[in-house]
């Protein structure tokens, strides 16, 4: 009986999501029929949704940046709400009788810790287990990536569209009178809106001009490259902490004969930094490819089929988050542990 109720609740939530999404697609995209959608196929470069003007600089706000801000805000709010609910109970009671959201958070944290400790193996940094030491960094990366990825499957992503102001027609707040007159195409009624930043499009948007307000944060190469650069810098930093600067250079030059080391050293330096490219390109390629795949499927058949692909993409997005964090852990373990194996050998 209880199982049936749970099933019904899950089905109901799914139905509401799918219904909302279908309704959104139907209303926002001027589709000629319910079955066939007309979805904007994303380009690799994210679209600006707003333009701020400071002095002579124009700062475009990209939709990926906006949606990653939204994702971060949701994460922080969730964490704050849950921890506030926790601190209302005494610690003893919390440990003996966990309930509600505490279970979910503990399960998630435990999962990530087990993942990292499994990947780090018996690696140690300054006699502390490596998995625990790097948990704040890699766990944060994992949580952000997986949340941003799954969040981008929520209804509203790439279906709510806005019409951004044209280039040069920067969004000037209504109070500032120094707005540069927008390049007004004569005879277009929208030009007066463009002075105030952005125009929301409900109804008949033209897919060529309107851009999605929210877009998967990791489908922007800059976002993934930023995370990969942070990860690789931390790998190098931890290697220096573990071996000392001289030991780190020796580690890069390997144990080869002296003339070989001159060849090995640049190769190792390049291979360390090519990991930035491989980490970031993998995540970006999967997320962007997933976006394109969903849009294409939606343009083919707009009804049940995309749901199946949503499931597939959810699995792939999880794998990608797993890979990013596990690979970072493996790199750190290799960089930190290599020297200690040598120490044992000496």
């Amino acid at each position, binding site marked *: 009986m209880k199982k049936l109720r749970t099933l019904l609740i899950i089905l109901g939530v799914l139905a509401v999501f799918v219904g909302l999404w279908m309704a959104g697609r139907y209303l926002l995209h001027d589709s000629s029929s319910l079955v066939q959608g007309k979805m904007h196929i994303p*380009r*690799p*470069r994210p679209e600006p949704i707003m333009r701020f003007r400071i002095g002579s600089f124009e700062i475009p706000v990209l939709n990926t940046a906006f949606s990653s801000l939204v994702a971060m805000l949701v994460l922080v709010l969730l964490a704050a709400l849950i921890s506030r609910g926790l601190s209302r109970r005494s610690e003893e009671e919390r440990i003996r009788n966990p309930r509600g959201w505490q279970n979910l958070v503990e399960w998630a944290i435990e999962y990530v810790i087990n993942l990292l400790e*499994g*990947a780090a193996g018996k690696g140690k940094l300054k006699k502390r287990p490596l998995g625990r030491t790097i948990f704040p960094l890699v766990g944060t990366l994992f949580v952000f990536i997986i949340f941003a990825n799954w969040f981008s499957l929520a209804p509203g992503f790439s279906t709510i569209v806005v019409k951004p102001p044209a280039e040069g027609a920067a969004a000037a707040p209504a109070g500032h009178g120094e707005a540069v007159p927008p390049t007004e195409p004569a005879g277009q009624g929208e030009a007066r809106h463009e002075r105030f930043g952005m125009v929301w499009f409900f109804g008949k948007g033209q897919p060529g001009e309107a851009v999605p307000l929210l877009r998967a944060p990791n489908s922007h190469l800059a976002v993934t490259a930023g995370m990969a650069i942070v990860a690789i810098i931390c790998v190098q930093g931890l290697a220096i902490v573990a071996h000392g600067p001289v030991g780190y250079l020796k580690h890069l030059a390997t144990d080869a004969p002296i003339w070989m080391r001159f060849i090995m050293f640049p190769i190792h330096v390049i291979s360390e930094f090519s990991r930035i490219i*491989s980490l970031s*390109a*993998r995540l*970006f*390629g*999967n997320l*962007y*490819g997933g976006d394109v795949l969903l849009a294409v499927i939606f343009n083919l058949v707009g009804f049940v089929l995309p749901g199946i692909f949503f499931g597939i993409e959810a699995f792939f997005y999880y*794998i990608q988050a*797993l*890979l990013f964090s*596990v*690979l970072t852990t*493996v790199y750190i373990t290799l960089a930190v542990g290599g020297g200690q194996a040598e120490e044992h050998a000496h």
Partner: protein
Amino acid sequence: MDIKFAAALAMGIGSIGPALGIGIAVAKAMEAIGRNPEAAGPIQGVMIVGIGLAEAVAIYAFVIALAIIFT
């Protein structure tokens, strides 16, 4: 049109290698799990990392195809 064909070719040829690599990796992992079912957990973890490394090559092909289409 011909430029799009080049992108399709890059993606198609570039994904042969990763496909074979992933296939071999999964086949060997399954073999290993079949021999020693208790080690399924660690084998799966290592397998996923290996698959990710092999898959990166296909992703490079994908990025190249994008660069061909959109530049």
